[in-house]
């Protein structure tokens, strides 16, 4: 049995039957500025995201969550550690790892449809395919009426939908989402949370999702990673039940389920310890 892993890349540390994680952050540390003098944002964080898994990272404000994400996307090099995709060094950023940025980062000079098609054009997807995928995303995100609008003409919620559509249209292997609902009003947030939950169930995206909302973490995550205050370390990883009814329905209903309440209490307790101890 153990000899049958002939297809594995050489040097892979795990020659067992289990495939390597889709995305792995291995012993990541990040200093901004010189080591020992600058800002120590992240300290020795390891996170594995398996294929089709939805991992949520929670932690107090400023603990290094966004830093972890930019390192994971390849936008910043870690000071120590490495980022692996399918067990191989991930290399520069690219469309296999789509990102939804904390501050949207829509291109202000481009219309909604230009923003969404941006990545497709950069990677040489055929014009016909571009139109098909654009139409699909506009429909999913309810943006059909706004396709010719500029980001500055849209509400925050609509802008965030565009940012999500722009990431999903790439059909990425890995989706990195940095507090994508942080800036939204409660109603829009609820709707988008349910939408993302549905997309994950149906399309089995591999997701690394960052939030400071414990409820969001419990509702969306297959596993929740709790970080300490800065420099961010991994405080605890909590496995959540996957195919339970309360995760597939409305978030309001889920929030009344005893199991949900128990997880929320546990995770909130862990996060609170970090906030209180500042």
């Amino acid at each position, binding site marked *: 049995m153990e000899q049958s892993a002939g297809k594995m890349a050489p040097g892979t540390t795990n020659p067992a039957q289990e495939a390597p994680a889709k995305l792995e952050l291995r012993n990541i540390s990040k200093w901004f500025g010189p080591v020992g003098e600058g800002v120590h944002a992240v300290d020795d964080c390891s996170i594995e995201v398996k294929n089709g898994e939805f991992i949520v990272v929670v932690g107090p404000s400023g603990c290094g969550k966004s830093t972890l994400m930019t390192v994971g996307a390849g*936008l910043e090099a870690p000071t120590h550690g490495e980022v692996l995709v399918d067990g191989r060094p991930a290399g520069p950023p690219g469309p296999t790892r*789509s990102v939804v940025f904390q501050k949207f980062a829509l*291109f202000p000079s481009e219309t909604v449809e230009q923003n969404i098609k941006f990545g497709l054009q950069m990677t040489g997807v055929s014009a016909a395919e571009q139109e098909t995928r654009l139409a699909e995303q506009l429909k999913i995100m309810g943006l059909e009426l706004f396709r010719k609008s*500029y980001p500055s003409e849209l509400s925050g919620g609509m802008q965030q939908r565009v940012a999500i559509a*722009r990431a999903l249209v790439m059909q990425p292997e890995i989706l990195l989402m940095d507090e994508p609902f942080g800036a939204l009003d409660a109603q829009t947030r609820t709707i988008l949370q349910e939408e993302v939950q549905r997309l994950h169930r149906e399309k089995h995206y591999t997701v690394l999702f960052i939030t400071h909302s414990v409820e969001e973490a419990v509702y969306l995550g297959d596993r929740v990673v709790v970080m300490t205050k800065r420099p961010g370390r991994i405080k605890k990883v909590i496995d959540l039940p996957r195919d339970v009814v309360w995760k597939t329905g409305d978030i309001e209903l889920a929030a009344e389920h005893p199991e949900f309440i128990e997880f929320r209490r546990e995770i909130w307790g862990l996060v609170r310890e970090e906030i209180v101890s500042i």
Partner: protein
Amino acid sequence: MIERRLERMGVMTDRGKAAAYGIFSLSVLLALWICATSLFQWIEPRVLPSPAQVIRQFAWIITEPFSGLRLPGHILFSLERWGWGVLTAGLVGIPVGVFFAWNPWFKTFLNPVFELIHFIPPFAYIPLAVLWFGASTATQAMVVFVAAFPAIVINSQLGVAQVQKIYIDAARVFGASPFRTLCRVVLPAAAPSIYTGLRIAISNGWMALVGAELVVGKVGLGFMIAQGQENASVATIFVGVITIGCLGVLIDTLVQRSERYVLPWRRVAS
């Protein structure tokens, strides 16, 4: 319905107000001028011509050739020299400014040279321009170029340097090469600043042009003013000065208006 109409009226009155103030201040100036000359003759006609004299001179220069050309001819020559100067300044200055910001090495290397050039007044180049190009269009165009160039470089550089990193990150994530990031993300984001640079360059260039024409050449609005001095015709000088002022305002207004069409996303942002 009513609200919308009020809104529309509100816009009208806002614009109307600005126009009314403009007309008012210009009328006061005109009235003072009339009082000082035609009406009370506070100032001698040799020193300050009356509006009537200036209008007569306008009519004269428009219908009869002045030093070989009618007024529109002089205007076209001036515009041509100015156009070439500003065009080349834009074509060279925008890339230079962009690369100053995009490539730090480029900036470190060229900035000292640029700083030095920047502090030499455009008119100091006139003798050089004459030696290089003789009395041709290129002479004045070069002076315009020198006057226009720094503003374009500085503002293009500022515009690019101010582009937020998050947009560049986004472009990288979605697979854009550095060159396509520059074209599709950085330049549009820097465009308003580049536009500001162009506007400053256009007015600097216009002023430098008239200065250069005073000294070299046998046509153009600056030359016309110089001829007025030669002939002791204050009215001719006034015709030249008023034409220069009005054309300057006209060009700036056109450039300002064009921004809304060249940068359509800015229309809604403001």
